[in-house]
């Protein structure tokens, strides 16, 4: 069943990324830098050495998960932008079990990971229930839940999880609850494999099971889903729970899977915006779990390589963020093009 058609989203995404890079190059040029030199620095910074590559993957790890949150929502016809808040609570849940509940090695790591995922999923249940049984629009409720999660997490981090004598962060994860570091020169840990594994499991679930089929059917055509006997409430809850698990894992990965802090900052500084960044990653990855992994590596490369670009060429780090945005915008081009063509065909 592998046909060129299945690869078309990939080629389209690559084309738009290229388009975004060209547009970003113009921006860099407009600020008086050489785009060629800048992009060379970017590429070298992201992929130049083994450590750079591993660091790129470390940046990519949480993004592929928060992208998954958004992607599963879209596949079910929902606009779940609550990954940010679900991720905060995932980080809190993982911190609590990893830092304050001693357990034997092995079990502890798994328990901390699952605690993070469960906390994210529980937080996602709020907008899910509001949507499924009260009809509250998920965009509104997830935005509100993000703010509540922010302040709730800071409150919990400062009042219940804080390390005595160190106000700026929570207790660190006990050594039994830390993912093994893969290389001393980078912050990449084995949590990468858990993230990729989870994304692949979700992929298999969505495309290989009856429940996944019904979820995608509800997103593709709600009326046809009704015709097929799919209950919309079930789909809403299911997609939010899967998304919450992914976002919770993303939060946990930054606490128990990312040196050197091994803890959550009281300001949540080491996790903020990862949830929102995931939306852009999901769009570039065409709301596909595997596409999300690839797009996360791209965005990880921009984050990691951007450092060298700033250091070597003097391109402001804000321009790197702008580049992210331009690439996401460029994703709209194919859609825009079909729209224009349809308009002309009237």
């Amino acid at each position, binding site marked *: 069943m592998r*046909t060129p058609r*299945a690869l078309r989203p990939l080629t389209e995404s690559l084309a738009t990324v290229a388009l975004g890079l060209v547009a970003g190059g113009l921006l860099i040029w407009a600020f008086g830098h050489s785009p060629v030199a800048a992009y060379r620095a970017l590429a070298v910074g992201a992929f130049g050495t083994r450590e750079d590559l591993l660091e790129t993957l470390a940046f990519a790890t949480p993004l592929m998960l928060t992208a998954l949150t958004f992607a599963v929502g879209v596949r079910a016809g929902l606009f779940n932008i609550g990954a940010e808040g679900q991720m905060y609570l995932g980080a809190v849940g993982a911190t609590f079990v990893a830092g304050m509940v001693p357990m034997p090695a092995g079990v502890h790591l798994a328990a901390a990971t699952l605690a993070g995922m469960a906390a994210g999923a529980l937080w996602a249940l709020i907008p899910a229930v509001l949507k499924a049984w009260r009809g509250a629009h998920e965009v509104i409720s997830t935005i509100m839940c993000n703010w509540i999660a922010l302040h709730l997490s800071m409150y919990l981090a400062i009042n219940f999880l804080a390390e005595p004598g160190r106000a700026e962060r929570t207790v660190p994860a006990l050594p039994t609850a830390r993912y093994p570091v893969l290389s001393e020169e980078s912050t990449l840990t084995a949590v990468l494999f858990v993230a990729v594994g989870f994304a692949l499991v979700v992929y298999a679930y969505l495309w*290989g099971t009856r429940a996944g089929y019904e979820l995608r*059917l509800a997103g*593709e*055509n709600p*009326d046809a889903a009704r*015709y*097929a*006997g799919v209950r919309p409430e079930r789909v809403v809850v299911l997609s939010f729970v899967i998304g919450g698990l992914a976002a919770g894992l993303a939060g946990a990965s930054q606490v128990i899977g990312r040196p050197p802090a091994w803890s959550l900052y009281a300001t949540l500084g080491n996790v903020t915006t990862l949830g929102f960044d995931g939306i852009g990653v999901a769009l570039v990855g065409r709301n596909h779990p595997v596409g999300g992994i690839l797009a996360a590596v791209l965005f990880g490369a921009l984050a990691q390589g951007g450092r060298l670009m700033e250091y070597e060429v003097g391109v402001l780090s804000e321009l790197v963020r702008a580049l992210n945005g331009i690439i996401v915008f460029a994703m709209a081009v194919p859609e825009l093009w079909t729209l224009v063509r349809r308009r002309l065909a009237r």
Partner: protein
Amino acid sequence: MREQAPRVQMRGIHKVYPDGTAALKGVDFHVQTGEIVALLGENGAGKTTLMKVLSGLLRPTRGEIFVDGRPVLFRNPSDALRCGIGMVHQVFTLVPPFTALQNILLGQEGTGALRPLPEASARARVHALLEEVGLEVPLDVPVESLPVGVQQRVEICKTLYRGTSVLILDEPTSALTPVEVDEFFRFLRRLRDRGAAIVLITHKLREVLEVSDRVVVLRQGLVVGELPTSSATAEKLAELMVGQLTALRVHRTPRAPGEPVLSVRGLTVRNDQGRVAVRDLSFDVREGEILGVAGVEGNGQSELVQALTGLRQPESGEVYLEGERVPFVEPLALYRRGLAHVPEDKARFGLALGFDLVENSILGRQREPQFVRRLGRLNRPVILRYAQELVRRFHVVAPDLATPVRSLSGGNQQRLLVGREISKEPRLVVAMHPTRGLDVASTLYIRELLVQMRDAGKAVLLVSADLDEVLELSDRIAVMYAGQFVGLGPADQFRRETVGLLMGGVVPAGDADAARAPSPH
């Protein structure tokens, strides 16, 4: 009468849609100042397309339009409005939370995106207009809280306020109660007497006879009749509208029907607007028969089918499948008991256009044990083989099974859908507009499949706006009008003209044996 160019004249209008459908095949049409012209025809005859061309919404493929004798070219509805031509559509274009006054002023010349609506200055003018034409509209109430009949007045007022003197109305009475209709007609006559030219798109014979001065009958994109209303009769118009049987013939042998498979008792269903769409309806469909429900669309057919197939909660009544009462709004339970459903809008209900043929082949069947393995995993090999079987058996033309069904032709989409439903080995087939928009070969094939189902002893409920289809396939025929069956009987008791009259809401005199049910009024 003075020799004068008509207010509006259309000559040799052709319209071919991008998908190749020829909606208009050379239509001449004109309307004079001070007359009401009824544009009559069945669904799909081209009435609305013709008027969309006149109002600038569609560009004709060929043909000319003259306004007051001068040739014009409309690029958009604003161009038509500048010539005084305005259309009120079946689906209103009002902004629900805005007041009537705001809606009337919206998009007016002299207003802009950044300027506030000139409500104060325009209020007097709107009032004067309303008074002049005798319409009553509460100007300061959000239109969403107004009844549909009043919303329609707002829509008309909006059009008139832009200086429209050629008013096109698309099925204006479909949303109105009988009392509202009478009032509406008085308003139309007043407007005509003030010198407006009015085109009334309709399929209701009674309305044509009651309010129009002249009738133009369209069928399959051609004008098949034009006559002054004074010399028209309901019988004559019905005959023009429905025409003769086309050459599409399906071989059908007589067959004695058996026990009832579907029994409907006292079914009442409301539509999305909360109006009663199906009123206290009772009937049976027996094994080995096709019960054909004819009728102009919008008389409750959609709601009836949706209630029977688990898509809509009825207000009251009971439905039995093979003697067992079935639950409402549980499609899967109905499928398990032997329902196959070919829905009225295949792209909306029956298929997921973005999914490929394989995934569409199990839509609605995704929970059947044969397709699911342990842990809820889909049984890919079995599903693939089943999809191949469907494609082969029902002659679906597709590049390969991984093609999204969006890129199949309508005929092939419907073959896949009907094939899927029929291969369920159902007891009851409910099919609505099963051949709408299909090419001749697919139409014939789908009809043959329905007859095969009947011959195999299934009960078939066929609901169609295509009168030919109903007359040709059915063992018994019912005509639906205003939520009820105004006629129900063996097919051979129905003459074509009789059905045409019943569809138009006229119960023919002396045909009371065929039209057993009482008139809805």
